[in-house]
């Protein structure tokens, strides 16, 4: 399976180019945690069930991502700092189609 490249801007504004595997069923929140780009305990609080919005990010590249599920949509409806390009990182799976994805982590709330 191929690895993909993702560009992640952390909450301090620093941008990181990271390599993500596509064969480990990982999502973007887990990639952030595995590279320690956000402090433990401030991201992925619910474990990745779209139930806390601590992994909210803004998608800045022009990728077509899988559609927002009802769960994710409902969580974003209650989250803070939400923009039109907001997504929950835990709902973005690492697949070859999103190679080159660029995201900015939303502030902690």
């Amino acid at each position, binding site marked *: 399976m191929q690895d993909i490249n993702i560009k992640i801007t952390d909450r301090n504004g620093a941008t990181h180019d990271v390599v993500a595997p596509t064969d480990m069923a990982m999502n973007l929140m887990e990639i952030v945690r595995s590279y320690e780009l956000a402090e*433990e305990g401030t991201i992925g*609080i*619910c474990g990745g*069930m779209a139930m*806390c919005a601590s992994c909210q990010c803004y998608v800045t590249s022009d990728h077509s991502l899988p559609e927002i599920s009802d769960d994710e949509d*409902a969580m974003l*409806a*209650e989250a*803070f*700092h939400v923009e039109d390009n907001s997504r929950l990182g835990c709902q973005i799976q690492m697949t070859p189609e999103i190679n080159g994805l660029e995201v900015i982590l939303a502030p902690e709330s």
Partner: protein
Amino acid sequence: MITTDILIIGAGPTGLFTVFEAGLLKLKCHLIDALPQPGGQCSEIYPKKPIYDIPAYPEILAGDLTQKLIEQSKQFEPGFTLGERAETIEKQENETFIVTTNKGTKHQTKIVAIAGGLGSFEPRKPLIPNIADFEDKGVEYIIKEPELYRDKKVVISGGGDSALDWAIFLSNIASEVTLIHRRNEFRGALDSVEKVQELKNLGKIRLITPAEVRGVLGTDKVTGVAVEKIGEDSFIVDADHFIPLFGLSPKLGPIGNWGLSIEKNAIKVDTFDYQTNIPGVYAIGDVNTYPGKLKLILCGFHEATLMCQSAYKRIFPNKKYVMKYTTVGGVDGFDGTRKEAPKAVVKAIE
């Protein structure tokens, strides 16, 4: 003053299982939790989600796991201080600790076991510039006393179960209930959504969607909120109380100021017995960190078991003990029950 052998802070799976392991060593436990019910994240955030990595349970709902842990611990008669947050710890000259909650409840204990998960659940506060000025002056993030709202004008914001449930409940108490949500859709249980629809049709709940509260109005206390309906000019809704209900988020909170070594929002422990840098204070489950740490319920169970053995040795430094299997020794509950393997039947065959 509540007295106990082991004071467990956090009534999640790890805290509940600690009661059982301590009970086998005849140590009595008392639990404090900021939530009004035991179970921690399992009952608060995802009671209906299945868990697949509890040994011997191919699949179990988080809520059911909590119920089974409560059932297993019951024979050791744990005490509970629920809906209160452990605030301060004081070490006494006789080597015990006094832990006081935010409501002033005092607990004297020989051992403290912090099983606080990701921390105590605190309400998420919306980003409204002047909201902090009105806290306890008409802005409440948690409804503690529904009678406070009798014959008052109440504005609730949020789109989940708690916003819906309280809008329904308060519609019988308050003089006016307005529910404001950023979307037209609500995430709550279908029953609740339908009930709100019915109350809206009866004129008992005013629904404003898609809209957001942008400001709180008043001088000494809340008199109204500024509401912005998407795509329209903002307007004012009169209110005596504004209750934003946007769920809870865990914060390490006051425990962070107890002088414990903290790393990455977790408490550093020695993996020998999960003791912290303060002798007699242990940290188990998701709240701790050590090289190789995994935040898994099954790891919390292991840590609780080892921690109890160490606590016993600390309380009874000269009293001998070796770990006994429950299959051999059975289980003697503090409630007088005894569980044991049936005796072998010896009978001759003629």
